[in-house]
Structures are given as structure tokens and as C-alpha cells.
């Protein structure tokens, strides 16, 4: 097979999770495994996993409204040294443009509305897409520096 795509050694991971917050850490653990070949600063790794946490929490709470009959679909892969995460819920969807700016003075002390902001802060790319048939898909991307790849550094 000829392909210029450099995928992770673990390969793509595709999961379907029930709408429980307890599942967030399991997904974070597997995402951490995907990042293992990369000698990332501990902070970078932490922020990536936080962005994933926020996206999953969003899908479980706001998307699926914690309805156990609805699933959260998660795809994770490293392609061309970039981590790509796709999180899809089965909820009613929402308008990302309608989410209030948490930095605006009038929103500063609100108790919610920071999850998307954190995703955008910690990742290189964040996209939202309504899914045909219902649900919202969030795509997150983070470049993992090639220089930092363990096996290349060590040789």
C-alpha cells in the first residue's frame, strides 16, 4: 500500500460510548496511548486530554442530555503527526455561533459556557458540523511536533 499518510502505531481508534461521564476518563486514557510515541511536554498532553474531556462532556451533557439510549461516537487517530479527534453525539444539535463569549464582562461570572472556549484555546483546529439525521460532530486537531517523536529523537 502506498500512502503518504503517517498514521499512529496504535491505528485509528473508533469507539461508541454510552452517555455517562465515567466514560470520559477511559477515552482520555486511550487518547494518551495514541500520544505515547510523541515526546510531548507534559502540559501539551494535559491540554489535549482536557480538550477531549470538554468535547465528550459537551456531547454527553448538552448533546445526548445523558440519555443512556443515545451514544457518543469517538474516532481518534494520528495522521501526518497530527492528532485528530472526532466526537459525535445523537442529540438535537446546536448553533456554535450562538454560544456566548465567556470573556465578555457580562458572561465572566456565568457558571457554564467555557467548554468550547477551552477546546479552541488548547487545540490547533476546532470545527463543528451538524450531522445528517441529528446530532453534532466536533472535530479537534492538534499538531504533534515531528521533532518530538521519541523514536526519531533517540536515534
Amino acid at each position, binding site marked *: 500500500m502506498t500512502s503518504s499518510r503517517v498514521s499512529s502505531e496504535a491505528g485509528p481508534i473508533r469507539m461508541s460510548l454510552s452517555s455517562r461521564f465515567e466514560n470520559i476518563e477511559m477515552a482520555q486514557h486511550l487518547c494518551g496511548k495514541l500520544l505515547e510515541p510523541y515526546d510531548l511536554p507534559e502540559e501539551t498532553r494535559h491540554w489535549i486530554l482536557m480538550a477531549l474531556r470538554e468535547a465528550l462532556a459537551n456531547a454527553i451533557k448538552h448533546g445526548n442530555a445523558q440519555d443512556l439510549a443515545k451514544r457518543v461516537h469517538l474516532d481518534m487517530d494520528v495522521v501526518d503527526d497530527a492528532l485528530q479527534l472526532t466526537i459525535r453525539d445523537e442529540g438535537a444539535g446546536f448553533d456554535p455561533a450562538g454560544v456566548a463569549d465567556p470573556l465578555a464582562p457580562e458572561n465572566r461570572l*456565568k457558571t457554564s459556557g*467555557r467548554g468550547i472556549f477551552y477546546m479552541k484555546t488548547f487545540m490547533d483546529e476546532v470545527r463543528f458540523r451538524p450531522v445528517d439525521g441529528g446530532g453534532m460532530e466536533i472535530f479537534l486537531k492538534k499538531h504533534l511536533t515531528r521533532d518530538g517523536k521519541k523514536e526519531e529523537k533517540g536515534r
Partner: protein
Amino acid sequence: MKTSVREAPGGVQILDLKGKITIGSGDIQLRETINKLVEEGKKNILINMQDVTTIDSSGIGELVGCYTSVTNKGGKLKLLHLPPKISDVLTVTQLITVFDVYESESEAVASFAA
């Protein structure tokens, strides 16, 4: 998350938190602990964050909610020993300027009398 409350001079309540303040795990617990203190008339509260390992937007939201409810009751809620990552999370959302944050417990306790 584990919580424990101790009383410092001047009636300041120090709330020691240990573990995660994340959605479905610690966020509600934080709110209930603070609400209970406020209901008991204990309105000067110092949250010791030293052993908080993880926080997410829900945990941050609860911290903000606690700050507002204590302030609205005429009390003060301050933070002690913020781990660097939690400080970063508060900084990017410009909340770090909302909270009084201390590195020294004695200084923090004394500040309530000011």
C-alpha cells in the same frame, strides 16, 4: 473528590479539596459543601486547591458559582495554593482576576480581617 473543613483564627473556614473537580465527579460536591457552610452562617471561606489534580469547565463553573453565592451573602471566597495548570485554566478565561489567590495560608487567613 474528598473535602474536609477546618476552622482558622477569625472564623475563616478552610476547605481542603483533594482529587478531581470535574463533571459528574466533584463539581456538585463542591457546590453542596460551600452551600452548607453559607447556610451555617460561615461566610469567610478559603478553598485550598493544593491537592486538586484535575479541573474542567464544569469544575470552573462551580467555583465561579460558589464565588457568586458567597459574595451575594456578604461573604468572601478566596483560593489558596493554586496548582499551575488550574491557574492557567483560570487565566485563559480571565477568571484569575476575579479570585483573590494566595500562596501562604497565614496571609490568606489574615486577609479576611482586612
